[in-house]
């Protein structure tokens, strides 16, 4: 449904996208995961035909994003990163405006947005600027959906939204996917990766990995240990001296320790800590998260 082939883009000296290739299948919920400045927005804008790539080609549902930009714009719904509705228009006026711009009416495609719009309908006479973050996102999504797009492109829809609204938002995306809409969504939150069918980890304009979240976690090539201790800061300083260490990072109150595959056991690490005088701890093998993999790949790329 979305084909990206060796897309290249830079701004001055800064490379935004470096030969990025990727394909998203019909009806897939595809996540683009990476920090600010990784190239997520540039890629989405190129797909929306809002930016011209400097090299490579991309197509949406078979339409070339440069040549056939008019068709591309007709068949896609887009939610840019910033809140981009009219704050001085009411909820209903915004929705009506975007419906008309795409040559349709609210009634015609109401079934698509019903689930989402019903939640904000009680406030339909309120100005969009006075909505809470979560409600703004729902309205923006309704506006992006109102013309029944084949593809939805959502640029960081959950940034700055509270945890509950974020959760609801992903549930909405899941239902839209079930209606057959192909969705490309970007997020800086690694923990949202598991909500996607497949994800791409992006950093500094390069795709580090493209896979299903489950396969990605399974592919974690090293050993990972969860270390619990009272003195996180001190313990992590000790662990930095551990032989065959790859990295040690805090995940909340737990330390994730990554070591070369097959070198250590819980016991050998425990012995090391005891030698350092650290006695109050627990160590157990643990499965990696997407964030662990991201950190590993980032370090790996840095060294190359």
């Amino acid at each position: 449904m979305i084909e990206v082939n060796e897309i290249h883009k830079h701004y001055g000296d800064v490379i935004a996208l470096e030969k990025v290739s990727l394909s998203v299948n019909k009806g897939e919920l595809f996540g683009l995961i990476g920090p600010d400045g990784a190239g997520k927005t540039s890629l989405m804008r190129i797909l929306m035909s809002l930016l011209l790539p400097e090299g490579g080609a991309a197509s949406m549902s078979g339409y070339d994003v440069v040549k056939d930009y008019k068709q591309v714009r007709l068949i896609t719904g887009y939610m840019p990163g910033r809140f981009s509705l009219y704050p001085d228009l009411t909820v209903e006026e915004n929705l009506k405006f975007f419906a008309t711009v795409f040559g349709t009416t609210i009634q015609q495609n109401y079934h698509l947005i019903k689930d989402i719009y019903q939640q904000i309908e009680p406030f339909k006479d309120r100005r969009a600027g006075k909505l809470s973050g979560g409600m703004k996102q729902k309205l923006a999504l309704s506006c992006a959906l109102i013309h029944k797009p084949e593809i939805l492109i959502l640029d960081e829809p959950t940034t700055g939204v509270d945890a509950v609204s974020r959760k609801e938002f992903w549930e909405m995306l899941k239902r839209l996917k079930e209606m057959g809409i192909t969705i490309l969504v970007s997020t800086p939150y690694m923990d949202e990766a598991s909500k996607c069918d497949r994800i791409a980890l992006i950093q500094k304009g390069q795709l580090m990995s493209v896979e299903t979240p489950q396969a990605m976690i399974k592919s974690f090539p090293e050993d990972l240990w969860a270390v619990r201790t009272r003195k996180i800061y001190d313990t992590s300083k000790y662990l930095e001296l551990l032989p065959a260490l790859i990295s040690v990072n805090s995940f909340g109150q737990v330390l994730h320790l990554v070591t070369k595959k097959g070198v250590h056991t819980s016991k050998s690490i425990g012995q090391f800590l005891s030698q350092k005088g650290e006695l109050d701890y627990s160590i157990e093998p643990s499965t990696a998260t997407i964030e662990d993999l991201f950190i590993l790949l980032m370090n790996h790329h840095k060294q190359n």
Partner: protein
Amino acid sequence: MIPSEPVITVRNMVKKFGDFIANDNLNFEVYKGEIFGFIGANGAGKTTAIRILCGLSSPTSGEMNVGGFDIYRQTEKIKQNIGYMSQKFSLYEDLTINENIRFYGGVYGMNIAERKLRTTEMLERLELTAYANRKIGDLPLGWKQKLAFSIAILHNPKIVFLDEPTGGVDPITRRQFWNLIYEAVEKGITVFVTTHYMDEAEYCDRVSIMAEGKIVALDTPEALKKQYNAANMDEVFLKIAR
């Protein structure tokens, strides 16, 4: 963390913008040397509260004391004793690293010898010595955030306020940033931080969860997890919101 003397005391803090109540009767204390976290969505009132405590905006009502100074009468004293790093990046993009440091050193009335010493230390700590004459605008986001934080504590304030310092930063830099925060705490600086990354809430000594202008929960992360029978802060948040 054993409660010591409070460095911030807030009693019945209210802030209204017209009909809109941004802060609805907040009450809390922050103790010396702790990392105090404010979590909540955009629009929950975190930034408003921080601005009031920094003396950038005046409250509608309530009693507040920051670093031993009254928020209404001793705003200038407060500003001398705190550091502030806003969500919007606060260094001058068109000045170099050195020029920015010189400027902020000047603002806080540091003498030249002291400023030079601290600058050298800081740049070495951040491994940025080689880039001292680069313009801020040319640096990656993660570097900027680390630099902005280091400059915010350059004058050794009692308290530093950080308003969403890690938003959009990559996972490695985010952890490096938190290491800087721990180092600041070792030096005796009290840290007041807002975030909407739930895992970062666990790095705090105590967190207060905000929603619609109110504090809905305030305790150590452990106690909150126990109280709500949750595995992590994310679950705590979801359970509170329901």
